[in-house]
Every structure is written in C-alpha cells, then in structure tokens.
C-alpha cells in the first residue's frame, strides 16, 4: 500500500518543552490508523505538528509526495489534509449551518450538503441554532461533517469519542466506517482502544514523545499485555 502520509524523525517543541523526540510513522491511502498512548505522551502534539499548528518542529512530513514542513498553516488544508481538534472547535457566533459551510472546499469529491444532512439528520434539524447549543455528540458530528464537505483526502481526528455517551460513540463508529468505505484516510488519536479496534486497520503505540510499538488490528488481542503496561489501563 502506498503511504499517503510518511512522517520521519519528527521533533516538536511547545516553547521550551521538547514534546516529540523523533516520531516515525506512515499511513497508507485508505487506511485507518490509530495512535494510542497515555495522556501527555504527545499524541495531540503529533497531529498538530503534522497539520502545522505547532510550528516549532523539525523533521520530514511527506504528504502525497510533498514535505509539509515548509507549508504555511493556511495552505495545508489545500493539500488535502483536514484536522478535527479535541475541543471540536464549534463556533458559538455561527449557526450550525454556517459552521458546516465554513471550511472551504479544497478539492472535488467532498460530500454535498444534502449528502451530509442525510448522514446526519439531526444537524439538518438544528441547522439554524447557534453552533454551541448542540450536545457534545452533535458537535462532534458537526465537526466531522464540516470537514467531509471540503474534499480532503485525509483526516486527523483527535479523540472523537471523549466524553460521549456509549450510544453516540457507536454512532461515530458507524460514521467512521462509512468514511472508510468512501476511501477516506484517517489518523485517529484515541484513548478508548476498544472503540478504535472496531474501526482501525493498524495501531501505533506512543510513549514519551516517540513510537514504541506498531501492529495491525489482527494482533490486538496478542498485544493486550503490552498495552496494559504502556497505557496503564
């Protein structure tokens, strides 16, 4: 499988703190890869460094043949990369509909608004409410939905199920499965590896700012021991 994203030797800093110590990873086209690890090991920083939100970084970030390291933040999406932060980032001064339409279409092949409303009927219902009047689960749907409209080829998803009720988590799992069917490449950060195991193809395990393990989903049950050690679950 051709790697769509290839990260080599990524180091990143928040101010004086050296968070990432040489991260290496690949994500193949159409794959759904999950990044596992305890709180604070650098999972979110990895996503933000790939996207370019964290600027103080060194290394190589090869996306579809181009090194993203030099690309300014507002041009990264146009290369086909979408980012959904942990906080979801729904804007309170915009309606649901305005939130949905905010990210500009960067390529053809994105879902149409009608398709999105079909996939997320409750967003259609609430389309004129202020964005933050939605429940946590609905906001997560909206955060994912608006990226789907843009036509990006790869999504960086930071802890989509955090703080959500099991029935919503189930729903998000279904959405991710649908995305996979449509050929979307996804790099997922998740603490809930049971959820991740239902959707992911491959796992990376992270500790202290670097990768300490990698395995396909088929080997998940064999690796439970290692997971318990590293994740402290």
């Amino acid at each position, binding site marked *: 499988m051709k790697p769509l994203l290839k990260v080599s030797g990524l180091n990143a800093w928040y101010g004086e703190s050296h968070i990432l110590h040489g991260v290496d990873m690949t994500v193949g086209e159409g794959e759904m890869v999950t990044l596992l690890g305890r709180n604070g090991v650098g999972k979110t920083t990895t996503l933000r460094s790939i996207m370019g939100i964290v600027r103080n970084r060194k290394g190589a970030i090869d996306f579809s043949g181009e090194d993203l390291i030099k690309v300014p*933040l*507002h041009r990264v999406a*146009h290369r086909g990369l979408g980012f959904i932060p942990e906080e979801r980032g729904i*804007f309170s*001064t915009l309606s649901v509909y305005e939130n949905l339409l905010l990210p*500009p279409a960067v390529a053809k092949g994105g879902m149409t608004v009608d398709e999105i409303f079909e996939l997320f009927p409750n967003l259609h219902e609430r389309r004129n409410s202020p964005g933050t009047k939605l429940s946590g689960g609905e906001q997560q749907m909206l955060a994912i939905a608006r990226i789907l409209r843009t036509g990006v080829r790869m999504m960086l998803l930071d802890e989509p199920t955090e703080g959500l009720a099991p029935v919503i988590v189930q729903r998000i799992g279904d959405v991710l499965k649908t995305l996979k069917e449509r050929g979307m490449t996804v790099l997922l950060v998740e603490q809930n590896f049971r959820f991740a195991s239902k959707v992911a193809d491959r796992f990376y395990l992270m500790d202290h700012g670097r990768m300490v393990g990698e395995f396909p989903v088929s080997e998940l049950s064999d690796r439970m021991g290692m997971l318990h050690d590293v994740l402290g679950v």
Partner: protein
Amino acid sequence: MIFGIPLQAFLGQLLIGLINGSFYALLSLGLAIIFGLLRVINFAHGAQYMLGAFFAWMLLSYFGIGYWPALIVAPLAVGLVGAVIERTMLRRLYTLDPLYGLLFTFGLALTIEGTFRYLYGASGQPYATPAALAGGTNLGFMFLPVYRGWVIAFSLVVCIGTWLVIEKTKLGSYLRAATENPILVQSFGINVPFLLTLTYALGAALAALAGVLAAPIYQVSPLMGSNIIIVVFAVVVVGGMGSIMGAIITGYLLGVAEGLTKVFYPEASNIVIFVIMAIVLLIRPAGLFGRDV
C-alpha cells in the same frame, strides 16, 4: 415649548446630537471590528478619521476632485495605508501584551497628526458642502439642513450595511469565526493573516469615511482626530466592543445624550459622555452590551 425650552432649540440640539452620534457610531464600529479580530485598540483611529477629511480636502484643493468621488477615494487610500501598516508593523505585536498595540497605534496617531500639523498648522480648513446637498428644508416644526440629514441617513446605512456583512455573509462568518479561534480557521485553509490585514484596512477606511462625512460640518483640522478619539473610547467602554450592533447603538445613544445635555445643562455637555461612562462602570461594569472581557 418642551420641558421649558423652545421646540426649535430642542429639536435643533437633538439633530446635532444625532449627527455627533452618527460619527460616534461609525468610529466605535470601526474600533470594535478591529479590536474583535486583532485584539488591538487602534488609537490611530482618530488620525485615520482626520486623514479621510484631509484627503477629501486635498482632492478638492489640489485636483479639483469633489465630494462624491472623495467619498470613495479617501477611504480607499486610507484603507490602503492601513493595510501596509498592518502588514509591515502591526502584525508583529499580536503575540505581545495588548498594551503594546495601544502604544504603537498611539505613536502612529501622534506621527500622523504631527505631520499634518506641521504641514498645515493647527487651525482648520473649510470644506464646502457639496452642491447637491446644500440648503435645507422646512419641516414645519424645525428647519433641517439637507447635509445634516444626509449624514445621519448615510451613516445609518453604512452601519447597518457593515452589520449585515458581518452577520449575514460568508466573509462575515470567516471574520466571526476567526475572532473566536483564528488557528482553527487557518487550519481549514482560510488565509487568516490576509483577513487580519483586510480587517484593519476596513476599520481605517470606515474611520476615513466618517472623516469625509465630517469635512463639510466641522473644520478640517489636524486636531480633529485626537479631539474625537477620546470620546469614542468612552463610547466603546460604555457599549463594550464585543457586539457590533452594541457599538452602533451606543454611539447614537451617547450622541443624543450629549445633544440633549447641551440643551438643559450646557456647561456639562463636553463631559456628559464621560460621566455616563463612570455611571455605567459603577452599575454595569461589563458595559451595556457587555459580551466581552
């Protein structure tokens, strides 16, 4: 007679109050827009207002270009200058304590005002009312100079138009979103740095537009900016800068309050807005429309 004052005098002052209010509204609108996105208090706003008036005067005196083209050219020119300043200097200050933005724009205001004072002296230049808007109409209960009516109507249109752009258009949604979370908006592929430049330019242009409107009414003087900016600061403290509509409404309200004070208690008219500010601070510190800090 109304409240013991002749109706003519009362309505006359009310009119002046509405006119001043128009300028307060336009200027606090510009300040609020700039502050909302850039988090900078644009002390140079008054100077940009003065520049608008002066450019109109210069266009007329040196090139024979009249009021109507000036209404477009002057704000464009000042907006352009604003864009250059934001791009080259102001944007280096965004990561710093906001007081540096205030101090920088204060220095900018002094530089602009000082330059024009040096070139044209402190006294004002007259600017003739455009022919189409000259004269007045007798409404029966009062005499309304046409230009005064024009100022009020036009500024209302500009204010509401700006509000509509911000609240109802795509560009406006970009602005509102970027005000809340500029980094995320950038990650969507929206050129936020350009948006910042555009916003500052727009704010400066609004100030300049107010300046052109003001030219036929007040003398075009290098001092007109600093005289008005301090009052506008008081207006935004009262109204708060978190709400565009709030800034507009407060501007008109305080202008009218000032006008009415002139009728009943003239000695206090130039400080009444400050007094209102003090009272608002006592009972409702967040401001009338306090949606922000």
